[in-house]
């Protein structure tokens, strides 16, 4: 059965969630600008870029879910077939770069930064092309899941014998993991109920709020 014209989740909760998330992401990006301008410290640069890309990804996710929803409600399936792959391509690229920049901000001292960036952009483009060809945002989720598992395994291997998972790494893992869950939410065949959508969106907002609060502690 097609969704009702007035879908509370897509028309009210989604825009509010997206707006607040994007505001948090851009606040984090702009709040850390002065520190980066003063120091040109690469770790700060990658951290800022991660939230810039996540902000853009959440905007695209919202536009994509709106297009997805409106084409079903107004029975415009052909136009969805035309536009979706392009949204999926951009969504795949921006969100993969968001995840990569979060990882880069932690590991940049251990690698050649030029090679690391080339690698990140190449994987993001490859992932986007695969998602574009398959015309499925689910492909983004599968591929980013694999990326995330590799990143977590690498992190454990690199820090073996040292302290356990830090609060910061846990926060980063939550940002990336919740992104994947929130991307899953836009699929109508999602494996969980509407109540759970709202729960995950609320947890995402809480994670972004905690990160922003931690930044405010140091950067007034």
């Amino acid at each position, binding site marked *: 059965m097609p969704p009702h014209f007035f879908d509370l989740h897509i028309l009210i909760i989604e825009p509010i969630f997206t707006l607040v998330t994007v505001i948090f992401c851009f606040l984090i990006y702009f709040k850390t600008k002065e520190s980066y301008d003063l*120091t040109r410290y690469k770790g700060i640069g990658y951290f800022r870029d991660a939230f810039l890309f996540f902000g853009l990804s959440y905007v695209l996710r919202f536009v994509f879910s709106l297009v997805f929803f409106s084409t079903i409600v107004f029975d415009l399936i052909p136009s969805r077939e035309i536009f979706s792959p392009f949204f999926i391509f951009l969504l795949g690229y921006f969100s993969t770069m968001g995840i990569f920049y979060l990882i880069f901000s932690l590991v940049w001292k251990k690698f050649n930064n030029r090679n690391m960036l080339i690698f990140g952009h190449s994987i993001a483009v490859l992932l986007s092309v695969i998602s574009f060809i398959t015309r499925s945002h689910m492909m983004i989720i599968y591929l980013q899941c694999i990326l995330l598992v590799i990143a977590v395994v690498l992190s454990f291997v690199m820090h073996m014998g040292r302290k356990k998972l830090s609060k910061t790494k846990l926060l980063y893992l939550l940002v990336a993991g919740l992104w994947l869950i929130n991307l899953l939410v836009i699929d109508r065949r999602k494996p969980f109920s509407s109540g759970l959508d709202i729960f995950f969106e609320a947890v995402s907002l809480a994670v972004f709020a905690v990160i922003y609060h931690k930044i405010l502690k140091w950067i007034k």
Partner: protein
Amino acid sequence: MTKKRERLEVIFDILKDISEHHNSIKPTPLLRRSGLSSNSFSEYYKELISKEFIREIVDEHGKKYVTLSDKGFTFLEKYKLIIGFIGEFEL
């Protein structure tokens, strides 16, 4: 063995030395106090000039002095907070 100083720490030490000398010090004593090789100091010095953290001033006797700019003072003021931020997020 002493730990190698991070880039930001070296910049902070150089700027702090200038500030502690009433914001006016000659380049040679600054090099001595920095604990860097002359090549390394020269690179940092050029970087600080190009980023406008410090300025060179020549007095009426033709002697060169180094002073902090407003940006340099801002860096000194914010350094500890920025280091705290970097530590907090493991950057």
